[in-house]
């Protein structure tokens, strides 16, 4: 049974039919990419899957149960780090634990154990404004992880980073994903990023949005930071680019 299913999702926003019909399936532990033009409704789709917004039609299923409109079942991360400027790194990443009712001290201890995995060791007392963009995104991802839902919705998490930092984040993310085995939906504009990280990619059309292409990535995630040289890379990339450019 797939871990996450979005079935026949339709959504009109401000009088405009944004999502016409979206069908998406994500297997447990899979990394699934969502590619699509700006404004086609990718973030809207995530809001629906996260239960923050109800679709006009269609349903969201998690492990087979209909959960449409139920918030709190998936961990959500955005392009903006959304760290609170008044809290230091440790308190920021502890937020999901505190919201679940854990005492602050215990939440800090728990969060502290993961700082090194997320490259934040020694920075726990820094405020977000004192961190680099890459570190802020890693802190945001640690917060996402600590929500501990097993489903991660990552909405263009690295889009605001420079190319070099982004590349480092990819290598690091692959290692983190291997360690925690979450089920991931990953929105991106970047075809190579999608091919690098994902097992399966959905390409969405312009508004009114439908799924234009669904492709399995025919090679496994690399465990190095080198360019992928698999002969299937070029043809898959071209298929995706073709689907995106019309």
């Amino acid at each position, binding site marked *: 049974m797939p871990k996450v299913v979005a079935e026949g999702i339709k959504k009109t926003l401000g009088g405009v039919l944004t999502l016409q019909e979206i069908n998406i399936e994500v297997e447990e532990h899979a990394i699934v990419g969502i590619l699509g033009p700006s404004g086609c409704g990718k973030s809207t789709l995530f809001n629906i899957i996260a239960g*923050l917004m109800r679709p006009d039609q269609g349903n969201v299923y998690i492990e087979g149960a209909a959960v449409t409109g139920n*918030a709190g079942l998936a961990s*959500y991360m*955005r392009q903006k780090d959304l760290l609170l*400027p*008044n809290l230091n790194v440790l308190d920021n990443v502890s937020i999901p634990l505190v*919201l679940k009712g854990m005492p602050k001290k215990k939440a800090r201890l728990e969060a502290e154990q993961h700082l090194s995995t997320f490259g934040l060791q020694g920075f726990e007392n820094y405020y977000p*404004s004192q961190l*680099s963009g890459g570190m802020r995104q890693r802190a945001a991802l640690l917060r996402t992880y600590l929500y501990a839902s097993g489903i991660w919705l990552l909405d263009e998490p690295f889009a605001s980073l*420079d190319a070099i930092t982004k590349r480092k984040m990819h290598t690091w993310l692959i290692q983190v994903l291997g360690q925690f085995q979450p089920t991931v939906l990953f929105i991106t504009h970047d075809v190579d990023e999608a091919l690098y990280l994902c097992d399966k990619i959905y390409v969405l059309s312009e508004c009114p949005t439908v799924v234009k292409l669904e492709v399995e990535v025919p090679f496994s995630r690399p465990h190095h930071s080198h360019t992928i040289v698999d002969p299937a890379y070029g043809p898959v990339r071209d298929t995706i680019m073709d689907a995106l450019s019309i």
Partner: protein
Amino acid sequence: MRRKLTSIANGAVPLGFVVLLLVTWEYLVRWKAVQEWILPGPVLIARTLAGNLPLILKHTQTTLMECLAGFALAIVLSFILAFVMDEVPLLRRALYPLLIASQTVPIISVAPLFIIWFGYGIMPKIIVVILVCFFPIALSLLGGLAAVDREYLELFRSMKATRLDIFRMVKLPLALPSFFSGLKIAASYSVMGAIIGEWLGAKAGLGMYMTVAQRSFQVDRVFAAILTITALSAALFALVALIERLVIPWNRLTEWRDS
């Protein structure tokens, strides 16, 4: 080292200008270019201030108390109103235009009413202070709350935060810088409000001291009162600025520069 010298020099220029102005003023008065009972010189004003210091301090105490009480109550009222208006959109839509419209009523024009209703004690002054402080505080708080990025709210809702959690953990801290900018404006307004209240009739306070001096044409005392009021205003402003530094230290951190 050189930078430090430049910054001292930068401070010295306006200071030197002020000294020059005061000296010119003093000599104009000594040469009888202006009559002393119309415009006393700085030296006489300083002497009057020093001579009347115990009395002036007593009146300052009354005025300061009115300011602080009115200021504190205005903050409490602003918080209640801003919370309610922020949580209930219908109330926001109903009250916001009224709040703005209420500002077209000059406080001075309604202040005499409070004297009639509440007499010559400190109560009507506190009410005037509340009225002048309430608007900048409430508006800056409301503005700060409304300006919070929607994505923060969505993120916290996705983590099942309650509305109270969101207000406490997200909206309030993010609104604090805006709130303090309103607070700093209100700090200076509060002194003005108290003085206006006292002008209309009071048993004590700097405004009352001023009116008494004015009626007996003691211009040097009027000037001494003006000086004291200015100092009080500046002190309150500085106090709020200091509290701001303590409450939101993260606002002054040096930013990381990606390079």
